């Protein structure tokens, strides 16, 4: 009796062990094609083209040899299809390994594809269980995603990781997959992503740079922001690391250029909204403490009236820049990337209920007033420029 019981127990334990190994889903590293970045394009005949940048494990040298050129460390492949699953299926047919999206850090959307609209495509990406929200979304500026993913990048072995690192450094403007989707599904906010473009085209130094922003209206791309505007957008979104402004304080003469350079230290933004007759009105207050990092004027900033002058002039200049960026985004691109709708939703929820379905029509005419308040906190090591003009 006891022996039978023992045998029974052993059998059960064996069955458990057999089941727990998860054999059906074992994924060996050398059976996977690790996708580092993927791109979406639309072809002339309306088909979707998917490009994958796949890490080539044998091409990655060990740490000691790193930096040495020679073997390629990625392969880039593309395929067309009527939708994402069909295109991915065709890509799979070219590969001896299973496509694995778990490590994808970047999704590049080609400009044409973005202008065409991208609801359905994104659904495929979120439905896949292995795809993560930590990947960044970037839009190609003036090119297709395929071209971007084929660009070489010197500093990293895998260009996709290069894009990812540029994005995750706080200096750049970055939007993750989930932030993008969140904006896409919100009524009071439009999506915005960083825009990537090819620089030094046609030379042997050809590579990419991320210095613009792509503004969407709904799920369609409506335009791009210039580098200077991107800076202000970053301020609005709350990341001002290493943000610098240059101000022409005095007219240029033969001795001085007349410019002042400042860097933002602490910064912030406050939004206040009010509603009159169902037409909202918005005030935005930008404030920052800055430090002076270069001074090419004849002014001595140890004097308080000079400092006051710099503060007001700087505030005035940034205010003009912000107003023109707002006008560009609001009147021309008609896209609520700032989440003004969400602000009204929060501050005036009952009014929002009435206007939210007309929000895309109302938004371009909403008056937005920006107000900038700059305080100089630090001067650097020197009181005055070493080459200060001797007046007497």
């Amino acid at each position, binding site marked *: 009796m006891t022996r039978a019981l023992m045998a029974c127990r052993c059998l*059960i334990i064996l*069955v*458990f062990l057999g*089941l*727990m190994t*998860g054999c*059906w*889903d074992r994924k060996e590293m050398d059976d996977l094609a690790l996708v580092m970045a993927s791109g979406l394009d639309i072809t002339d005949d309306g088909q979707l083209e998917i490009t994958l940048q796949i890490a080539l494990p044998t091409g990655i040298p060990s740490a000691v040899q790193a930096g040495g050129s020679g073997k390629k460390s990625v392969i880039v492949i593309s395929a067309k299809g009527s939708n994402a699953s069909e295109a991915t299926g065709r890509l799979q047919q070219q590969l001896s390994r299973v496509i694995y999206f778990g490590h994808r850090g970047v999704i590049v959307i080609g400009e044409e594809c973005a202008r065409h609209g991208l609801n359905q495509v994104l659904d495929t990406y979120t439905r896949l*269980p292995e795809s*993560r*929200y*930590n990947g960044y979304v970037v839009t190609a500026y003036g090119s297709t995603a395929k071209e971007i993913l084929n660009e070489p990048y010197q500093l990293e072995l895998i260009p996709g990781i290069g894009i990812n690192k540029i994005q*995750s450094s706080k200096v750049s403007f970055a939007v993750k997959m*989930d932030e993008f*989707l*969140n904006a896409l*599904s*919100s009524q009071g906010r439009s999506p915005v992503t960083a825009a990537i473009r090819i620089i030094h085209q046609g030379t042997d130094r050809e590579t990419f740079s991320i210095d613009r922003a792509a503004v969407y209206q709904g799920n369609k791309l409506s335009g791009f922001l210039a580098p200077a505007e991107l800076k202000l957008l970053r301020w609005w979104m709350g990341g001002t690391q290493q943000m610098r402004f240059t101000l022409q304080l005095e007219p240029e003469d033969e001795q001085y250029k007349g410019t002042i350079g400042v860097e933002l230290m602490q910064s912030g933004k406050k939004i206040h909204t009010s509603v009159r007759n169902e037409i909202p009105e918005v005030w935005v207050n930008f404030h920052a403490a800055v430090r002076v990092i270069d001074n090419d004027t004849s002014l001595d900033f140890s004097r308080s009236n000079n400092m006051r002058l710099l503060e007001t002039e700087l505030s005035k200049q940034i205010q003009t820049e912000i107003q023109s960026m707002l006008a560009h985004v609001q009147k021309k691109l008609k896209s609520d990337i700032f989440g003004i709708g*969400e602000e009204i*939703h*929060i*501050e005036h*929820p*009952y009014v929002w*209920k009435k206007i939210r379905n007309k929000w895309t029509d109302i938004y371009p005419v909403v008056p937005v007033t920006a107000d900038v308040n700059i305080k100089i906190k630090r001067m650097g090591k020197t009181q005055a420029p070493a080459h200060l003009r001797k007046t007497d």
Partner: protein
Amino acid sequence: MKMKLTGIQVFWMITSMDLGMTLVMTLTPSLLAAKQDAWISIVAAGCIALLVTWLVTQAAHLYPGQTLIEYSQTILGTWLGKAVVVIYLVQWYTIIPIVLRQFSDLVQIMLLQGTPIEAVMLLMVLLIVYAAYGGIEGIGRCSEFLGPIILLMICLVLIASLNNIHWKNILPVYADSEIKGILSGALAPASYLGHSVEYLMFASFMNKPRKGAPYAFGAAMTATFFVLITTMMIIFVIGVNLSPSMWYPFFEMTKKISLFGFIDNFDAIPVVIWIASVFIKLSVYLFIACYGTAQFLRVRNWRVMLWFIAPVIFVFALIPQNVTEATGHYLNRYWVPFVLPVNMIGLPLLLLIVGKWRQQNRSTPV
């Protein structure tokens, strides 16, 4: 051979049964109905859960030492008592396959896409049969060990999510959803937080049967508190634009965690929470179903029932066609409209009132 449970074991048993399931399964209906006010729904759900706990502890303490099967017949008479027991048996017999199915669905959707669902289920069935075979005492000790781990894991997820918070997501409070939306959002979590209803069966196994109430209350409150914090966290982190369309928002929240650039992919942690919680829940229910059926049918050795019930639940669990049926339909068509008002509130109330009345009649001298 009498099995004994301590108060602490009952506490951890109810806490872990409540926590994992509520977090993973019921937040989507709540977010769908109440949007960013889902946390108010959880508060309401917690109140309902406390009411259920009060009713069942009061009812169970009328005849300490008897199980539900026995005292429902003592209180309501043989036939009515049997009818009540049948209602509870239906609940137990249907919840086991459904939870088993929900468990295997999640494992399949999120983790093991290539594994046949039968294999995942078989593993769990063998495990819970083993646990239930050992009796409620073994399950109690098991939950005493797993419960703290579940809590710890939840805390870990919450703390690691702190830097993903967007405070404004929770605003505006109350303005968007009316009281109706908030209350309807409370039903699903309430029906899962109300698992203290199983105290009706536990009470008779306790070593100090009358001292159990504070532990049951403590468990309901602990579970509600953690579900509340987690719901707020989900709203803060994911927002209410996306979360209502996700099957498992708690899972997605952990996927977003990324610490110091190199600690990524926390999805293993909810799996621990979930599997531990489901394991305890299933083995408790399996035990209750076996023990209850045996008493009901007057079978001397309740362990015999295991060999009949285990295959039945395995087959039943295969019936739902996909995740929509397993997760949505059972919850919305049976558990919320029937079990919550009848099994969790109505019947304990009936037992309590009739039982009190009987005891008073008996104690007053004729």
